[in-house]
């Protein structure tokens, strides 16, 4: 209607606009009410919901890593400690442009490829609001440089953290192992909450086995942060509980001395206190420094370690598997006694042994033969023919049964991870694993610890300790005691007896031990030279293990081939005979004969432990070249 009126009508025009103004005002009022309704909904109806959200927004939990338990040796010396170190850390969520930020950082602080590689792994593996380490072990200069430029780099911070350090370096590595950064593999098996704020986890050795004891409990700080993650103030704090300290049975001095006695030989020395099962020394040679592993060793150095012919990364004492050779003879003798062979029964050692109806000769190490031997003489002089005969008479089933009872072919239960069980062969085993029947000749050579039989140096030391204990087997323990964080009292763990070897009569041990005493103290003992001048009586047995072939997968340089084929030298012993305090097993790889190489090492170890460190060798007077 209105649209058709074309005459100038001032009143109408005014009315039209005023009508529109009124309509607009009503709409404005309606929209104001809509806004108020919205605000009412947010601020009154949903207030508690948003209130909670705002609380969560500004309050965050910053985990505080616990101090890892320290490790002490038998004499209370710190062998694994925590040193303060500066680390460059960041919360990824608070870094808007990571690549740019890393560029900026790299201009202030040297970042290696490994740092970056590790950081990128860490970046992926955990949620973005958790703190990560970019680099640790910053120098004071780097810290200062960062502090000056910090305002330009959001989300990064430098914190003082504790870093694991092993003051004795390589010496204890095969006992302690080391901690390292938590890897993606670790993440799959650990409780991530327990490791909040912690970058490290025990990877090997004591550090790995006693991870739960050493770790402690994370604490946290409830802090108010701004949207950039900067802490504005601390609201509350739950302190972390430091991990428990661990006291070892191992004596660093003895450990060091034993490795020194081992000298250039690759091999192992294990010393056990028979009465408790406490491991006094667990030496594997060669060694490597665990400290670079804490923050991740660089690829090149690691490659060098892996490719080293001496295979330093291998813990021979725990994981090395060797034929026991003649060191098995005392146990063989006991097996004979157990299965009703008389100790006085004699065998003529003519230098070789043949099975009935076979022309194959099993040779004795002494070509001309030992002559008539009873059990005692056979042990003292290590007559192979006697033990070929004994083994053949007993049969493999009984031998297997008895060696297993004595703790061979199964894990000793030491407080370390991934212990191998060794091997005591049986026809069942051979059928199952090799798919072949058992040959009688294999029983014969099993009598002198050759063939399939494999023991670890630790098992060998345990066998020795069990002999010294007359059948009581205590679980080998590296850890002697544990101390709660902050507590003054040390909680001694005490011996853990696994079993008493089932045997008809414990007197039978004396027959064997007497013979072992004569091995070192007797006129015809194979290790009589090592017994000379001893201030205590000890018992021992030599052994020589043939190296049949090159170890699987290993390649040797040509000039080393000859040495690599030399026999392994073994020796087991315990002392003093009357009240054994120490049982030792020594394996010197390619050391030749046990009496010549291994026995002196064992003697020195026992001397060191029972008597004390040898007097320092007299130094030759220095030549005075300048003297006219």
């Amino acid at each position, binding site marked *: 209607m209105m649209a058709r009126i074309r005459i100038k009508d001032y009143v109408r025009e005014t009315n039209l*606009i005023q009508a529109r103004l009124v309509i607009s005002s009503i709409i404005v009022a309606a929209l104001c009410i809509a806004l108020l309704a919205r605000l009412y909904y947010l*601020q009154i109806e949903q*207030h508690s919901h*948003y209130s909670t*959200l*705002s609380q969560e927004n500004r309050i965050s939990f910053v985990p505080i890593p616990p101090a890892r338990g320290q490790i002490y040796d038998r004499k209370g010396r710190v062998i694994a400690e925590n040193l303060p170190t500066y680390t460059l850390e960041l919360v990824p969520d608070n870094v808007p442009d990571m690549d740019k930020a890393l560029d900026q950082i790299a201009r202030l602080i040297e970042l290696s490829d490994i740092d970056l590689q590790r950081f990128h792994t860490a970046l992926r593996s955990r949620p973005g609001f958790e703190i990560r380490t970019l680099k640790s072990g910053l120098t004071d200069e780097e810290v200062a440089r960062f502090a000056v430029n910090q305002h330009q780099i959001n989300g990064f911070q430098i914190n003082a953290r504790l870093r694991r350090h092993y003051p004795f370096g390589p010496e204890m590595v095969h006992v302690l192992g080391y901690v390292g950064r938590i890897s993606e593999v670790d993440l799959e098996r650990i409780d991530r909450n327990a490791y909040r704020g912690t970058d490290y986890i025990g990877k090997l050795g004591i550090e790995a086995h006693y991870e739960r004891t050493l770790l402690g409990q994370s604490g946290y700080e409830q802090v108010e942060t*701004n949207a950039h993650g900067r802490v504005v103030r601390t609201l509350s704090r739950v302190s972390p509980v430091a991990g428990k300290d661990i006291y070892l049975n191992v004596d660093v001095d003895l450990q060091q001395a034993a490795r020194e006695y081992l000298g250039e030989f690759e091999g192992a020395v294990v010393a056990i206190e028979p009465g408790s099962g406490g491991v006094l020394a667990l030496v594997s040679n060669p060694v490597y420094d665990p400290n670079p592993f804490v923050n991740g060793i660089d690829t090149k150095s690691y490659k060098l370690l892996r490719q080293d012919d001496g295979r330093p990364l291998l813990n021979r004492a725990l994981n090395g598997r060797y034929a026991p050779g003649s060191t098995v003879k005392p146990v063989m003798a006991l097996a004979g006694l157990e299965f009703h062979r008389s100790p006085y029964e004699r065998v003529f050692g003519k230098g070789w042994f043949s099975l009935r109806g076979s022309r194959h000769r099993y040779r004795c190490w002494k070509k001309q033969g030992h002559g008539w031997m009873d059990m005692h003489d056979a042990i003292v002089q290590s007559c192979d023919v006697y033990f070929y005969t004994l083994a053949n008479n007993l049969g493999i089933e009984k031998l297997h049964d008895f060696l297993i009872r004595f703790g061979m072919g199964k894990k000793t239960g030491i407080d370390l991870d991934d212990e191998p069980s060794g091997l005591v062969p049986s026809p069942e085993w051979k059928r199952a694993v090799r798919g072949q029947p058992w040959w009688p000749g294999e029983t014969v050579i099993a009598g002198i610890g050759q063939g399939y039989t494999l023991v670890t140096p630790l098992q060998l030391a345990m066998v020795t300790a069990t002999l010294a204990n007359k059948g009581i087997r205590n679980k080998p323990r590296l850890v002697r005691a544990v101390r709660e964080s902050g507590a003054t009292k040390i909680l001694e763990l005490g011996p853990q007896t696994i079993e008493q070897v089932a045997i008809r009569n414990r007197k039978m041990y004396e027959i064997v031990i007497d013979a072992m005493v004569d091995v070192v103290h007797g006129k015809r003992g194979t290790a009589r030279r090592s017994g000379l001048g001893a201030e205590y009586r000890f018992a021992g047995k030599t052994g020589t293990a043939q190296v049949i072939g090159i170890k699987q997968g290993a390649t040797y340089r040509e000039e080393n081939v000859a040495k690599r084929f030399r026999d392994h030298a073994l020796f087991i012993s315990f002392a003093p005979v009357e009240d054994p305090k120490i049982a030792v097993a020594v394996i010197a790889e390619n050391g030749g004969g046990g009496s010549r190489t291994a026995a002196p090492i064992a003697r020195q170890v026992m001397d060191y432990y029972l008597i004390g460190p040898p007097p320092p060798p007299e130094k030759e007077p220095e030549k005075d070249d300048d003297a006219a």
Partner: protein
Amino acid sequence: MLRNAISHLDPPLVLSLIVLSGLSLVVLYSSGGENMDLIYKQGIRILIGFIILFLVAQLSPQTLQRWAPYIFSIGLILLSMVLLVGIVGKGAQRWLDLGLFRFQPAEIMKLGVPMMVAWVLTRHPLPLRVRELAIAALIVCGPTVLVILQPDLGTAILIAAAGVLAIFLAGIGWRWLLAFTVALGAAGPLMWTMLHDYQRSRILTLFDPWSDPLGAGYHTIQSIIAVGSGGANGKGWMNGSQSQLEFIPERSTDFIFAVYSEEFGFIGAVLMICLYFFVVARGMYIAFNAQDTFSRLIGGALSLTFFFYVFVNIGMVSGLLPVVGVPLPLVSYGGTSMVTLMAGLGMLMSIHTHRKLMPQ
């Protein structure tokens, strides 16, 4: 002389503007982290704003009507210049550097467009004819497109709104309005393709800000949390955790209402909205009682635009509307919009106070 000049001010409006400006300083002190520098700067801007208001109020509506085409033309030229030689500010070309301060030509258009529309529409008796409507539509669309190209969606919307509101007040037929709405609906998909990615994501996240809480939804979520956690009475001045801990982005400028309602709660929000409503209602009253068509149109359009600012800003802060860069009039920190707003309010006062001087 001075008394005469002062008489051109409208006391109720001036009083409510002073209260709003005072509130602005109070909230800025909190949102700016007790930065006195910020307060001084804003104080000076408010002062300049009032001076401009005072000066504009002296001009008669007839003068304004005469000037309308010139103001519009200058604005158009400057807008084109911005596109050609504009310097980059905040990732968008919006500013002309005039040495002492940077000038945003789009701001002129907030006044220039409604003035020009009113000028065109009053040359012929209302109601509108198609020809005038087409010219008015061009006047609105031209500057709007130029500002969108800058790109500054928020200002473009405000300019378009000012023009469209003037056309609406001029009595555009309801059928036209319906057709316009349908056309807008049809143009929607087309405009969608013209929007920048960040603008699209802002609109998308309006519907579900929680779908991208650390990205496009962050502004809205933090702002809603601030408002909602304020509750009835607020957390108290300087005590809003969302603002003090820097969770609210742009907390001194576009999102200052979030800070305000977090610290002063629903009661404070009601007070501020009532203040704004009063300003708008007073403006509508002035327009209603104006003595000529140009004054009614420009007065109504400016009042409604003022409200449009308020509604869009608070709607954005409370999560009703997408995030567009629209400041809260007189309260948000910043100078350019202050000048235009005060000039607009000055025009309202001019309309009201020059009334009696006209022969009835």
